[in-house]
């Protein structure tokens, strides 16, 4: 048996397993996704829409990379980092990726403790996630500075080859970095709510007036994992291709 649908009246509605369960849910009343709160459903659909945004970005990047007549700069040289005089290709980006993926791990822990309503631990891991996210953005700023100041790469051109290199790199990593930054801000807001006990007391939100609940930790987690996942694709097509 799949998890039964919970109802406000305390009655439980049993649901069949597997494919039949999906059919039953979709042909039922009230909710197509049983036991899925509104916020979570909304986040999933938003992420679907956002997937289309990032896909459009990446497909456009691939197209201009093919359409340009000027040779593409060699990514492992451009993105190298010199440590003690030795050029290590992709070093910075490896660290950045590691940091961001780790933040997904801490986010999982935060969601887990959120389920258990462990106020302090949830707070700590949310904050840790935010810190890792901020570190990522910081390193990205460092990388941008390096490319702009030292390599002379601009959105409209660069000395190493095709102008589209800088254009799509700054645009796409910038758009992704914005996602991460927004995520960091909201992680901090959620963390504060958790620590203050807003979620335990179901205190209404400052702007929306909706009662607080630990669901928002999980919703936040969805967003965060999505941003990480997108990074994996950006990483693959920008740095490894």
């Amino acid at each position: 048996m799949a998890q039964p649908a919970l109802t406000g009246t305390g009655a439980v509605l049993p649901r069949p397993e597997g494919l039949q369960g999906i059919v039953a849910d979709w042909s039922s009343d009230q909710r197509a996704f049983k036991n899925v709160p509104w916020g979570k459903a909304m986040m999933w659909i938003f992420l679907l829409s956002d997937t289309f945004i990032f896909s459009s970005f990446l497909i456009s990047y691939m197209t201009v990379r093919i359409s340009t007549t000027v040779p593409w700069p060699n990514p492992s040289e451009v993105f190298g980092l010199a440590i003690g005089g030795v050029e290590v290709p992709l070093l910075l980006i490896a660290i950045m990726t590691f940091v961001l993926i780790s933040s997904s791990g801490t986010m999982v822990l935060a969601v887990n403790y959120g389920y258990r309503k462990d106020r302090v631990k949830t707070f700590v891991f949310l904050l840790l996630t935010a810190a890792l996210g901020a570190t990522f953005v910081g390193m990205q700023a460092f990388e941008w500075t390096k490319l702009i100041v030292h390599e002379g790469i601009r959105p409209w051109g660069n000395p190493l080859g095709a102008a589209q290199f800088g254009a799509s790199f700054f645009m796409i990593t910038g758009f992704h970095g914005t996602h991460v930054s927004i995520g960091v801000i909201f992680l901090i807001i959620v963390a504060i709510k958790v620590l203050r006990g807003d979620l335990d007391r179901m205190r209404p939100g400052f702007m929306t007036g909706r009662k607080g609940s630990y669901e928002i930790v999980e919703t936040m987690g969805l967003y965060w994992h999505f941003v990480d996942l997108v990074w994996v694709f950006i990483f693959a097509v920008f740095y490894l291709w």
Partner: protein
Amino acid sequence: MTSITHDESAYVPPAEVEEPELYHPKSFVGKYIWSQDAKVIAVQYAITAIGVGLVALVLSGIMRLQLGFPHAFSFINPSNYLQFVTMHGMIMVIYLLTALFLGGFGNYLIPLMVGARDMVFPYVNMVSYWVYLFAVLLLMASFFVPGGPTGSGWTLYPPQAILPGTPGANWGIVLMLVSLAFFIIGFTMGGLNYVVTVLQARTRGMTMMRLPLTVWGIFMATILALLAFPALFVSAIMMTLDQTLGTSFFMPALVSQGQHLNYNGGSPILFQHLFWFFGHPEVYIVALPAFGIVSDLIAVHARKNIFGYRMMVWAILAIGGLSFVVWAHHMYVSGMNPYFGFFFATTTLIIAIPTALKVYNWVLTLWRGNIHLTVPMLFAIGFVFTFINGGLTGLFLGNVPVDIPLSGTMFVVAHFHMVMAVSPVLVVFGAIYHWYPKITGRMLNDTLGKFHFWVTFLGTYAIYYPMHYLGFLGVPRRYYAMGTTVFVPESAQSLNEAITIAALIVGAIQVVFLYNLIWSYFKGKPAGPNPWRATTLEWQTPHTPPKHGNFGATLPAVYRWAYDYSVPGAAEDFIPQNQPPGKKAKGLEQALDASDLGAQKLDGAGTPKPIGS
């Protein structure tokens, strides 16, 4: 006789979720300006959309003046003409129709029809409107900046859109792109609400297959919009960068006005793909809500269940899915691999199947129905006419060999005005005549309505039928004036004059409609709760117009599908969705009682308690 999809049940499952707390403001400003009530937001959306729509209408009148009387007006010059074409097209498609159907009718009807108190996230919904308004203001601002609005055509194709020589290549195009980006952000906030409300906030007993087709149409259109707008959003960002920072996403190396520009290596075709990946679904974003609404109008005013409800739903889903794989039929002349043309022609013809199915079902619903030629019904039937017309020319244009000589001519203009301009607009009118009594509590004036219908409907044909012929002759679109050619005869000009006169009459007559809207608001006949004797939930509210929260103390429970009209043996020729079976209701009051009774009986344990915590 096989039985119709007469979906009725006596049992209604208990409520799964606690009712949301609504934010009840006290002040006028809180209630009507910064409102979180979907119904107020709907009216805000509608008024704004109709407001810009009027601007677009005036622009079309000016264009027609120029085309009909090419040398008479000194204030229209070739650049202006292009700017008017562009603004007219973009405003009509995005800022009027998309906003009105989804932001306007979506907001008003979804919560009421699915039996919800409000949208799931009213605050986000409110922000959605204000972002939309901001986008509209940005767009209007482009009339006042140096160089004026962009004149690149509503398709905004680069490279010309941002090159000197195209009107508005400096300010206009950037404002247009930024405004579109904001429109998309605002729409996304609203759209997420519409989708989640339909999926997760229906009332007890309201299954997906009991939703009125209006909700299905708006729901699917919203999904299309959420997946199609991203492509436009991304291309807007990239073109803005091309214009402002000098990147070369869409710009190849080129020489313009004798100067070698600093662009190099971009792909103009990429823009076309992105644009039409959005642009074709956009056609269905305005068509699907129209399909849904028309289905309901026809069923209500023919007192018959809709023919083939399930097929209608599947057709909506099929059209929605297919609309993402036909986009390049707009690019047959752009220089594509011929195999692509073959593929996209095939998918285009396939999408005609579910569409034709819907048309048959409308006609079969009318067949031997008890047709009341009310104003909404007239508009609905008018829609079926214009839509069949535009659909047929669409089949022509979907075929590569036919499209190649016709694309870029007035034939295309005639086609898309029939199928996606006039048709949805007729539905908008019909829907306003139909739901105005619920929104304001008063009926619109019938005589004025019929006058409005006949002039608009016949005028449509007077305007667009001859345009097909002009297209055959080879008269190009987006041309300020024809000059002399060997292939267009002199007499084409007299046809153009006739079209212009018809267009001006149709345009002017819309004042009657506006007057009707305002006059009836104060002086119209009181409507009562359910003037059309319809089954769907929005007509069963305890108050008309419905109060904040829509349904009074208890939410209705739904026992049947939305189309129980003229059921044999029933006391009335309609049975509201919230009336339990077996009860012979004599009127609306009883139906309301019945639902409350049902609600109490089944709610059992009293106030629901929160779940998930």
